[in-house]
């Protein structure tokens, strides 16, 4: 294997807080959509019989968190918002009582929420909004024989613009009330 391929393989892969945050964001969106569109089925899966409107509100909350995580420059506040939502979910599950709840399903749901909460907390505490550091320096790779500023427009003196690549005269720059007819 060449040095280039060796070096490329040496680049670390695997879960990072940033990747985990993205994953949690998408998870939030998916769960939120399910709660919004299928509230009864979601409640039944959790072993509960509750007002569908409540589940829908939880869905809106999940979607808001997901959008926040995926769009914010720093997702940590949204990850903490997710964590707060997890606590609310757990409280809702824990207070569900018979005959309106299926204990086994509710217990499994509680365990799942607890696992996701752990992921949220890990991600919120480990995430660092650091700018990606360059791995190589290409600041001298211009491909040009001189400073770019000195070469600005160098091709204009001997390049004949094809007529079909011209934009209409009315859209070209105007000076003194007339279109500029450069390089005609």
């Amino acid at each position, binding site marked *: 294997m060449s040095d280039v391929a060796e070096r490329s393989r040496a680049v670390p892969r695997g879960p990072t807080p940033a990747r985990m945050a993205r994953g949690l964001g998408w998870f939030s969106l998916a769960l939120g959509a399910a709660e919004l569109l299928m509230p009864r089925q979601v409640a039944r899966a959790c072993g509960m019989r509750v007002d569908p409107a409540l589940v829908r509100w939880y869905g809106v909350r999940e979607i808001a968190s997901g959008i926040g995580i995926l769009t914010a420059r720093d997702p940590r506040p949204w990850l903490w918002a997710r964590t707060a939502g997890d606590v609310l979910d757990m409280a809702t599950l824990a207070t569900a009582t018979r005959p309106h709840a299926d204990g086994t399903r509710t217990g499994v749901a509680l365990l799942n929420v607890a696992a996701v909460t752990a992921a949220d907390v890990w991600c919120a505490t480990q995430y660092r909004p650091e700018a990606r550091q360059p791995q190589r320096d290409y600041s001298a790779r211009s491909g040009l024989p001189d400073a770019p500023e000195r070469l600005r427009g160098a091709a204009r003196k001997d390049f004949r613009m094809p007529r079909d*690549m011209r934009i209409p005269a009315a859209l070209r720059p105007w000076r003194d009330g007339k279109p500029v007819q450069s390089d005609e």
Partner: protein
Amino acid sequence: MKALRWHGKHDIRCDNVADPIIEHPRDAIIKMSACAICGSDLHLFDGFMPGMKSGDIMGHEFMGEVVEVGAENKALKKGDRVVVPFTITCGECDQCKRGNFSVCERTNRNKDAADKMFGHTTAGLFGYSHLTGGYPGGQAEYVRVPFADSTHVKVPDELTDEQVLFLGDIFPTGWQAAVQCDIEPTDTVAIWGAGPVGQMTIRSALLLGAKQVICIDRVPERLAMARAGGAITIDFENESVVERLNELTQGKGPEKCIDAVGMESHATRSIDAMYDRVKQAVMLETDRPHVLREMIYVCRPGGVLSIPGVYGGLIDKIPFGASLNKGLTWRMGQTHVKRWTDDLLRRIREGQIDPSFVITHTASLEDGPGLYKTFREKQDGCIKVVLKPGAPS
């Protein structure tokens, strides 16, 4: 011979396959000296282009030596050193005669499929799905070049492979992207994407005299290379593209906007990018057009949108009302490579530009599959990969 073959999404392998043979009197067989992985190869790698079949040979940026010539091919002879344009051209049809080589009417041997997909066929392409002819590509030790008497650029011995290889695609693609903006010395040109095509576009816009060239990306190595070429850069991870472009143009927006990204924009922190991801995942949209939307929004009224980035199928939620009301001009298309190569080869010979600046990784063909992943993930500072068949792995 050895060749890089597509076996499915994210599955490229270096396989042993049969050597190509002359199938038509206009053909030529080229022994590869260098080939490259193009950004648009990643659309195939990621499974976004329809019409691929397991076992297809990849690659449409390549060059080498002519080792065999068909009986009717009078333009080439054994030993000629050629770069092969990625668009296969007959040189005789109405479109070729007009210089619209990328929409050659005769070279797509799967014309019926292309007619159904696009309404009318476009040119055959190397290694770019069966919709464009299903021609084996050039990431291999040898390749058959159909219509080779028209589809070639002879290159002089005094220039290295690295200097001329990109005449087959990315250099003329960047050049055409800038040319079709009809750049004036008063123009600000904004270029989305600092990948290989974006880098060539930056230099082209500068040489064609743009007052200000701005490049938008997020990868630090690519932004540094863009600055080296004379661009002002915007890191969309850390800055607002719209605000910065307005700041740099006194609130009026750039006159010319170029999409050197295409169907797989990696926008983050925007609702529309999330929307595209979801729609793409459930197969309700093939392409992610965040850059197109942003260009329409920021472009100055009466401005030009130039699109060299490849789109494959269907896009959604394009603010066409804004485009209409602002009177924007759209220019797009695959590159008419042969239209520009004589002029660009002259510029390389005269030293006005050396396109080899963009090469960051050179390796053997056998290392190709791993480098597809490195290139896709933008790891190890990877911007452009050149593969040398026959080089030690």
